[in-house]
């Protein structure tokens, strides 16, 4: 046993001392031969004869050396090193081929790594919280409802916390926080910041520990408690330069002195989990007593007790939720809550599952096309190298050795491609992670980690085997001696077999590219349809800015202030119309109920859930919303506290079907309101969802706004406009924080960004697939043209015209393309059904897309065939015939 260990150790040592051991052995053998020769001489032989005999008795010096090496070192490693050295030499010689192969591989692998890292982050990796599978999001069961019905009142939340036995803790956050809802007042101009209100134990429920200081304590959640705040890591770094002494200091937040009690860890990104694309700067306690009368506003998250299953918790929730009160003060009003429990991870990424899987498949197809392409390149190279292999085989290389050599080449190429691809992917991933404008959850946490590296290794190895397989099989199946005689694959039968294999590969490539193209085409068409949707408002040339907002303001002073803001900003040159709203479309929303006033007191069933907007006169016009009937709100409505309401067509249809609603009385927001106008439906949450019920109320004593956004319609350039708007706002209110004037289009873009992201990626992959497939077809056709030079020469000598030769080449190209496309179309029909749920107003068999993509594929194939066709027609018959 011990001697085996010792031998293994010594073998390894010898491997690294090869040269010195060889030298020593040669010395030893030389003295051996001299001794033998000397002995022969003493026996009476001539010096020459003596030496000859000695060498004969010794056997081959080189063979002995080889045998020695084999017995002392690691022969397989020696062979591997030899193969590698040889591979590097040949690859260096075929510089062009190597560059092309590595680049193609790098592209394919980079695309795969990038998509995998996104898939890994969003779908595969658990959420960045301890025991995250215990975390549950609780929302109403009706998935169509707006944000308000995904939330619960303070009282209902408290009751659920006390009554349930399934959760370790249940907490939540205030779901209606708008961006820039606070201003941080320091020595210089006030800075807009986004503060999120969170209920007690929110961070404890998630399992987030502060990186500095402490979390909120119970006594900070009671009314009139000393205000405190937790900073997010990026905000702390940005605003306070990462100064740890900020903990314990007071900051001025919207004219309130707030003590910073801690800093959250860098790994905690609220936005990426709960509200994709949103950035949060700090957290403050949600004090339930301040919100008792405000309706549904808490989004709930709970942590299940150990051993409690989701189903158990769900059946308990089904018992408790319908019994919960809207408000303790009004025990007669039970809103009939429901509670749908979803594992937080699924809630966050569930909707994206299908899209991501499609993306993953698309990128897998790309890798497949890359492999086929490389296989093709290698086959072409194999044909050119057949003489080399024939020679090696004649010199005694066994077939296995040659196949191993080929495989080594594939692996080296794959490794180089993977290395380069990883580099490219690293940059792409970093770029993606910093794209705040893409509303994908967890995107900021995308990074290259161990799993991604493992995946890279796996696909690189898989690719190497896949594209090395065809040439390897080819080599092991062919007669090497024949190759030598044929001289470079020009032999008729061998060459034709070769050509057929390559044609098959090209057809495969074409089919795969066709599937990708059709998929991308369908998604692109859906995306165009989404962009085409009548939003009900005109996002272009409109921009919005958050205005310094104080919700304790009296209605009368607010009306005067709003009027001043609107009038003075309207006076800015280039501004067409101006209005104020407390909520913008496609950002946050809240809903109340609206009912037509009946003869009896309205029951809860009469109320239609409706999105509420508290607006100023001019807002509808500034947004480009279309008034169908009646009039807009005017300043007298605000000044006189008139309870008037503008409804959208959906509400009008629901409450007064077939009748004009103008002048009728509705019950909304706890008051009787006169309907003064009807507007065309506005897409509320996204372009893809149906427009819901909406109403617009003037900011009066009855209806306080939740924020203030000034919306301006102007053709003036944004930056110039932003400057003059800020100057005007500061003149009116020196405390106006430096908020940003953002185009309304940005809201729409944000809402469509996940679709844009997917379409862009799938589109890029399809383009890449098309490019690779056309390269493949070009390679095969131009190779066959080269191979048929003498034949073409003969035909031209016999009178075939240039056009005729060109047409023939193009015909064979189009034949391949057509076969590929036909297979591709059949496959696409199957695939498109799988992505049907991702399409928007586009049939999975959309004929325009199919025809368009086939034409595109054909056109590219035509181009790929035309270049070699031209080359073929330029063949000089004399030269072609002579060179053979």
């Amino acid at each position, binding site marked *: 046993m011990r*001697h*085996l260990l*010792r*031998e293994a150790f*010594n*073998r390894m040592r*010898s491997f690294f001392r090869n040269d010195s051991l060889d030298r*020593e*052995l040669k*010395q*030893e*053998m030389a*003295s*051996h031969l*001299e*001794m*033998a020769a*000397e*002995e022969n001489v003493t026996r009476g032989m001539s010096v020459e004869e003596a030496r000859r005999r000695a060498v004969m*008795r*010794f*056997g*081959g*010096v080189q*063979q*002995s050396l080889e*045998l*020695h090496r*084999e*017995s*002392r070192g690691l022969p397989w490693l020696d062979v591997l090193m030899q193969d590698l050295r040889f591979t590097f030499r040949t690859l260096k010689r075929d510089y062009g081929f190597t560059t092309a192969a590595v680049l193609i591989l790098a592209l394919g692998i980079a695309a795969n790594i990038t998509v995998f890292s996104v898939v890994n982050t969003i779908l595969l990796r658990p959420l960045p919280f301890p025991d995250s599978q215990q975390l549950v999001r609780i929302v109403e069961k009706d998935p169509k409802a707006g944000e308000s019905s995904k939330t619960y009142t303070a009282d209902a939340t408290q009751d659920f916390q006390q009554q349930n036995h399934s959760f370790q803790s249940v907490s939540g956050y205030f779901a209606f926080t708008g961006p820039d809802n606070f201003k941080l007042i320091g020595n210089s101009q006030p800075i807009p910041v986004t503060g999120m209100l969170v209920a007690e134990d929110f961070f404890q429920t998630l399992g987030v520990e502060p990186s500095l200081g402490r979390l909120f304590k119970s006594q900070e959640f009671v009314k009139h408690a000393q205000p405190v705040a937790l900073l997010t890591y990026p905000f702390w770094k940005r605003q306070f330069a990462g100064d740890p002494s900020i903990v314990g200091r007071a900051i001025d937040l919207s004219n309130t002195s707030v003590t910073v009690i801690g800093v959250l860890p860098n790994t905690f990104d609220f936005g990426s989990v709960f509200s994709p694309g949103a950035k949060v700067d700090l957290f403050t306690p949600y004090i339930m007593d301040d919100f008792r009368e405000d309706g549904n506003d808490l989004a709930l998250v709970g942590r299940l007790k150990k051993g409690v299953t989701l189903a158990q918790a769900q059946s308990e929730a089904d018992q408790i939720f319908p019994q919960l009160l809207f408000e303790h003060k009004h025990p007669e009003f039970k809103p009939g809550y429901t509670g749908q429990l979803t594992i937080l991870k699924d809630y966050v990424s569930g909707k994206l599952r299908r899209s991501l899987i499609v993306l993953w498949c698309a990128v897998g197809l790309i890798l497949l096309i890359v492999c086929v392409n490389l296989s093709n390149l290698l086959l072409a190279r194999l044909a050119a190298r057949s003489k080399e292999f024939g020679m090696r085989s004649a010199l005694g290389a066994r077939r296995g050795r040659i196949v191993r050599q080929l495989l080594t080449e594939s692996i080296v190429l794959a490794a180089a491609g993977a290395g380069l691809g990883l580099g490219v992917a690293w940059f792409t991933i970093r770029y993606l992670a910093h794209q705040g404008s893409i509303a994908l959850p967890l995107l900021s946490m995308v990074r290259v980690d161990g799993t991604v590296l493992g995946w890279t290794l796996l696909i690189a190895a898989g690719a190497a085997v896949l594209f090395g397989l065809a040439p390897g099989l080819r080599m092991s199946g062919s007669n090497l001696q024949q190759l030598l005689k044929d001289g470079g694959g020009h032999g008729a039968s061998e060459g034709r077999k070769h050509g057929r294999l390559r044609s098959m590969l090209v057809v495969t490539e074409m089919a795969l590219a066709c599937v990708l193209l059709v998929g991308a085409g369908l998604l692109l068409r859906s995306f165009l349809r989404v962009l085409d949707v009548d939003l009900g408002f005109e996002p272009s040339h409109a921009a919005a800015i958050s205005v310094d907002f104080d919700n304790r303001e009296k209605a009368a002073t607010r009306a005067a202030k709003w009027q001043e803001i609107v009038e003075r900003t309207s006076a800015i040159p280039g501004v067409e119309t101006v209005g104020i709203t407390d909520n913008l479309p496609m950002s946050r929303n809240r809903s109340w109920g609206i009912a037509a006033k009946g003869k009896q007191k309205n029951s809860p069933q009469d109320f239609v859930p409706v999105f509420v907007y508290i607006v100023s006169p001019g807002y509808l016009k500034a947004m480009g919303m279309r008034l169908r009937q009646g009039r807009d709100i005017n300043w007298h409505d605000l000044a006189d506290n008139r309870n008037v309401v503008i409804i959208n067509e959906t509400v009008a249809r629901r409450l007064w079907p077939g009748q004009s609603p103008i002048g009728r009385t509705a019950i909304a927001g706890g008051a009787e309101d006169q309907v003064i106008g009807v507007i065309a439906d506005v897409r509320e949450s996204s372009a893809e969802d149906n427009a819901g019920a909406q109403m617009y109320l003037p900011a009066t004593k009855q209806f306080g706004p939740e924020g203030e956004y000034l919306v301006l319609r102007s053709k003036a350039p944004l930056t110039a406009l932003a400057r003059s708007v800020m100057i005007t706002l500061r003149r009116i209110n020196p405390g106006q924080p430096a908020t940003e004037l953002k185009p309304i289009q940005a809201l729409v873009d944000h809402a469509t960004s996940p679709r844009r992201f997917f379409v862009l990626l799938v589109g890029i992959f399809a383009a890449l697939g098309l490019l690779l497939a056309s390269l493949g077809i070009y390679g095969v056709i131009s190779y066959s043209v080269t191979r048929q030079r003498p034949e073409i020469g003969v035909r031209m000598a016999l009178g075939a015209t240039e056009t005729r030769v060109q047409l023939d080449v193009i015909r064979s190209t189009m034949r391949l393309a057509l076969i590929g496309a036909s297979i591709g179309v059949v496959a696409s029909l199957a695939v498109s059904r799988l992505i049907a749920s991702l399409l928007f107003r586009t049939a999975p068999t959309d004929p325009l897309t199919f025809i368009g993509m086939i034409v595109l594929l054909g056109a590219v194939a035509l181009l790929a065939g035309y270049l070699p066709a031209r080359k073929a027609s330029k063949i000089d018959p004399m030269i072609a015939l002579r060179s053979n």
Partner: protein
Amino acid sequence: MVQSKLDLLQGTLDVMVLQTLEVLGPLHGYGIARRIEQVSGNEVLLNQGTIYASLVRLQQRGWIAAKWGISDNNRKAKFYSITKTGKKQLAQDTAYWQRLSGVMGRVLAMHGEGGEQ
């Protein structure tokens, strides 16, 4: 003539080398090869060069040691000598070969008797 020589079984050369060194003490490669040829009465098919593969193998297993020295006729040569573990190994191998050749002899003798029936 060459074909009638004995082809060496795997591992037999190693035992021969060990035995030679055990009996004759330190020797260089050429000396070992010559001695094996002489003792075997030129019955063994041995390319003298193959002895070096055997020597390096035995050395790596720790059964023999090597040292550069000067030969009788004043030549630089590597001298090999058997180590303590080498001697133990040789004893084991000797016992094994004797048992094997005994068994083989008996088996083959039985075959000869059977042939007469």
